[in-house]
């Protein structure tokens, strides 16, 4: 721990300056849905082979009702930040508040998660999955079936209630996972590359559906993606991460009302924003690729030496 403290004291003055800057350009949002303050997170202890500094001194405000995309090179800590926001990880330092409540663990009444793999329970039908989620959250028994049905209708899966997840396509499974999250009626949805494992056509259609749903529901959504197009198409704001240890490099605003039409994807504005994003990301991706190549080899050598 001494090493970590020393490392932070070296880095802090410079970073503190940058946070100040961030505070100036990204003015704190009054009455934010989620506030992230100076969050750093590391996996493992300093000196261990597995030690990774995933997040460094990240601050961010998420406004009520907005869809914010987190985008960045792989391994930059965007999923880590999402998990910290949802109380699934306790950050090494820093704090997150949802509304006025400090986050110290899962907040099932305020926050629902959607994961890259659908995380539906394979031994339950889609309908049973809905019911079980609400059972966990503590919804009264009398309301569960009704809410499950409404959520399935909202994503167009009402005819598949009795199917098992393995009987559905990947896209349908993700819609079922979305329905399960919607049935929990939380104000906040945290989505961790929810369409990442799907083909591009399915992903685009689900994106359009999500935009429609969002315009009706007024939910606050944080959406992790590695797709530039998806980020620009869905987001009200896009937070761009630097390479590891990740921190937010810049936040771009996409000023376009929801629900967004497919035509938006061919507009000049869309392309300008996408290019701007790519410009910001390009350098970080190069950096992250060069840094990930080396430690990996070192790790493998060590593994060989161990065995």
């Amino acid at each position, binding site marked *: 721990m001494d090493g970590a403290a020393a490392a932070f004291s070296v880095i802090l003055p410079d970073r503190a300056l940058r946070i100040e800057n961030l505070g100036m350009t990204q003015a704190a949002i009054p009455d934010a849905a989620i506030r992230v303050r100076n969050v750093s997170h590391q996996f493992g202890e300093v000196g261990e082979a597995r030690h990774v500094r995933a997040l460094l001194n990240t601050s961010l405000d998420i406004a009520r009702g907005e869809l914010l995309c987190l985008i960045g090179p792989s391994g930059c800590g965007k999923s880590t930040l999402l998990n910290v926001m949802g109380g699934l990880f306790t950050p090494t330092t820093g704090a997150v508040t949802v509304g006025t409540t400090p986050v110290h663990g*899962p907040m099932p009444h305020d926050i629902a*998660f959607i994961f890259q793999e659908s*995380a539906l329970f394979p*031994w339950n039908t889609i309908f049973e999955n809905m019911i079980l989620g609400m059972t966990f*959250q503590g919804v009264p028994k009398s309301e569960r079936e009704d809410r499950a049905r409404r959520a399935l209708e909202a994503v167009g899966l009402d005819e598949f209630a009795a199917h098992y997840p393995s009987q559905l396509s990947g896209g349908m499974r993700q819609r079922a996972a979305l329905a399960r999250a919607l049935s*929990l009626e939380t104000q906040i949805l945290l989505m961790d590359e929810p369409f990442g494992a799907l083909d591009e056509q399915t992903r685009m259609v689900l994106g359009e559906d999500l935009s429609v749903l969002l315009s009706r529901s007024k939910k606050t959504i944080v959406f992790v993606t590695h797709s530039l197009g998806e980020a620009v198409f869905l987001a009200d704001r896009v937070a761009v991460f630097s390479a590891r240890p990740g921190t937010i490099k810049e936040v771009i605003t996409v000023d376009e009302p929801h629900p967004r039409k497919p035509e938006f994807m061919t507009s000049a504005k869309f392309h300008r924003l996408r290019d701007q994003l790519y410009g910001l990301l390009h350098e970080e991706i190069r950096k992250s690729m060069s840094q990930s190549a080396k430690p990996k080899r070192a790790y493998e050598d060590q593994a060989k030496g161990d065995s």
Partner: protein
Amino acid sequence: MSSPRRKFKDRFASRLVQVGFLVVVLLLWYLATTRWGVNKLLLPNPLNVWDQLADVIRKGEYLNDLRITLTELAVAFVISTVSGTLLGYAISRSPYLIKVFEPLFAGIYSIPIILFLPLYVLFFGLGPASKIALGTTISFFPVVLSTIAGFGNVDKVLVTAARSMGASDYQLFRFVLVPAALPVILSGLRMGFTVALLSVIGSETIASLAGLGHRIVNLAENMDMARMFAYIVFVIAIAASLNTVVSVLEARGRRQR
């Protein structure tokens, strides 16, 4: 995709081959004893065996031995099931304990534990206690290993998802861990049952005072081959029906999780 009709035909055909195989074996057995002059002391006439089997069942002579063997089996299986699943679950909660105990148990499981039978007889006597102890020891390992594997390999994202939706410890156990682990545990239990049956009857034939295995060895020592074969057929029938019951229960358990 093959049609249901085609599937039925396939299944019927393979059943036919299986039954045909048994019929041929019986026929060869019969011919060996009547035509080819194989000594009656080595191989009795199957019709003779059939008569003896009918006699054993009619007189109810098997009842006491069957009761003893089944009691030994039941006690051994219950002890190994309860201890194996509880210990397996406790170990599966910690990656460190899994790393320590999983290879240890797998190692012990791979040695022929029946070698310890003389020791068990020394400790527990010639009666049922030594059979129960051996049956428990042998069936414990598949149960504990499958329980560790079942609870240890639950998909992490399912646990995270349940936690994020507010599942309590009990709900997580009841609705996520148990259903995820159950298929693996059930096949471990089925394996445990099979090896418990094997080791109970096996150890009865080596050193015992009563039980079906004891009876078979006793008849062999008295050169009563036809009756011994009748008992072997009887034990095979009992074992086959018990294994069928266990398989059906396993399949039902998988469906109802």
